[in-house]
């Protein structure tokens, strides 16, 4: 019963997402929607390592940045297609996962968080200061768009549907992984890491798998972002952005795809709805987020679940 409801839920969500830009066709809003979709992919990835496995990752902006720069530089410096660059981007995500995961996932708690922050900052500084290669503070301009069957994806609405296709694909992949042996091992690590190793499972190995998934998702999102906005600049990828990603899954509900979607939508759209508050909007926004975390530590989804149980 509840399974069929869930399936309908997914179908409804996709239908709503397909209709959205037809109903709200204001270009400014469609731009926002595109960015939200990109953030949803990142949240899906972060969900593996932070949401399910319980390892705090504050380096997502660095992952996102590397993905964006890899794709942007490859397609502007050489004339290869964004599709081929995308394959390279996936490879970069894999390398970050294994290369950064191996040394850092022997660390725990706050030391891990610090390492991931350091990684993201290092990436941002490199992007900002290797002027000859990355364009420095000027960023990378004129990044070519993706082409699908010979058509260039240029308008905002085209981009929206293009990115939405990726969201659906990555949502499906996430769903399959979450409900696999791996997914259950991720949750087991969050629940009780000592008991995981006494089950004969190499915990460092599982954490690295979760982290690699997060970095591949983050890099792909970065690639999509670069070609969608056609211009990137290192100042986008700050620690602030990394924290925002964590807030997304925290607010929506950790370890759940709906939570990721809800969190990404709320965190990216809320500032828009609060804009009428003028200069008080930043303050109101922060207070709202704080209240959310204080009173719904399991995320908005946990409240929905509680209401369901009461009924």
């Amino acid at each position: 019963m509840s399974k069929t409801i869930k399936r309908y839920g997914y179908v409804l969500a996709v239908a709503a997402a397909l209709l959205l830009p037809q109903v709200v066709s204001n270009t400014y809003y469609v731009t926002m929607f595109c960015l939200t979709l990109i953030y949803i992919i990142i949240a899906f990835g972060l969900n593996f390592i932070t949401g399910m496995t319980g390892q705090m990752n504050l380096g997502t902006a660095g992952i996102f940045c590397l993905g964006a720069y890899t794709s942007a530089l490859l397609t502007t410096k050489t004339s290869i297609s964004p599709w081929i660059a995308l394959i390279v981007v996936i490879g970069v995500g894999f390398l970050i996962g294994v290369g950064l995961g191996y040394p850092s996932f022997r660390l725990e708690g706050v030391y891990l968080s610090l390492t991931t922050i350091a990684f993201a900052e290092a990436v941002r500084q490199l992007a900002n200061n290797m002027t000859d290669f990355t364009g420095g503070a000027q960023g990378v301009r004129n990044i070519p768009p993706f082409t699908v069957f010979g058509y260039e994806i240029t308008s905002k609405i085209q981009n929206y549907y293009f990115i939405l296709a990726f969201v659906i694909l990555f949502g499906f992949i996430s769903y399959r992984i979450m409900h696999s042996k791996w997914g259950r091992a991720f949750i087991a690590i969050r629940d009780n890491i000592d008991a995981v190793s006494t089950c004969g499972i190499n915990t460092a190995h599982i954490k690295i798998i979760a982290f690699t998934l997060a970095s591949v998702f983050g890099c792909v999102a970065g690639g999509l972002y670069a070609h969608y906005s056609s211009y990137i600049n290192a100042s986008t990828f700050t620690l602030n952005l990394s924290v925002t990603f964590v807030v997304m899954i925290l607010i929506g509900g950790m370890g759940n795809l709906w939570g990721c979607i809800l969190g990404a939508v709320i965190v990216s759209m809320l500032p828009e709805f609060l804009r009428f508050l003028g200069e008080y909007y930043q303050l109101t926004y922060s207070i709202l987020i704080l209240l959310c975390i204080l009173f719904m530590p399991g995320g908005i989804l946990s409240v929905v679940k509680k209401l369901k149980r009461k009924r």
Partner: protein
Amino acid sequence: MLEVKNIHASYGKVHVLHNVSIQVGEQEIVSIIGANGAGKSTLMRNIMGLYHPRSGDIRMDGESILRLKTDQIVKKGIVYVPEGREVFPDLSVEDNLEMGAFSRRYSAQKYKSLLEEVYEIYPRLKDRRKQLAGSLSGGEQQMVAIARGLMSEPKLIMFDEPSLGLAPVIVDEMFDVIVRINREKKLPVILVEQNAFAALSISNRCYVMENGVVTASGDSKVLMNSPEIKKAYLGG
């Protein structure tokens, strides 16, 4: 089968185990009794590679496992059912059991027959297989922890305080199962217990630990009648 030779272990500067040696042969139940803080759990944790002793050697089937990591030791066939019902509360009973089999690459058929085997030992777990382990009673969680240990087809199984915090009726059941596992699966068992009487009555041999030292060892029946053991552990 398992041989612990003269190990010394410490947490920082505090010496916890002094020259401890124990042996476990094929198919026997060996109990380790002693008061709180005697070093029983530390000994288990050292065997499992959760801590590494400062000196001494630990051998399984003649091969040293001293420097191996926990997951590699489990692959050598030693399974540890930790104290305090360490289940995964957010996973269902069946998913908890799956974790026990994670490191073995069983065929689907083999996996199913193992699952049936543990459900036969604990039929109650079969009824609750879809339930989250965190929602079970203490006794049932302990069953999950034991069943999970059996899922990797161990060659030796160690129980750390399986009776801790359980109702007396359930404690009896727990010990019955341990004996049954030992007999039916011909599995050697190490049983760490504070409940000295129960431990002595089901084990073949026993080691008595005090302040990190093995102070007595031998046949459980003999120990049970020794005046010192009676006085210190069996209430007169």
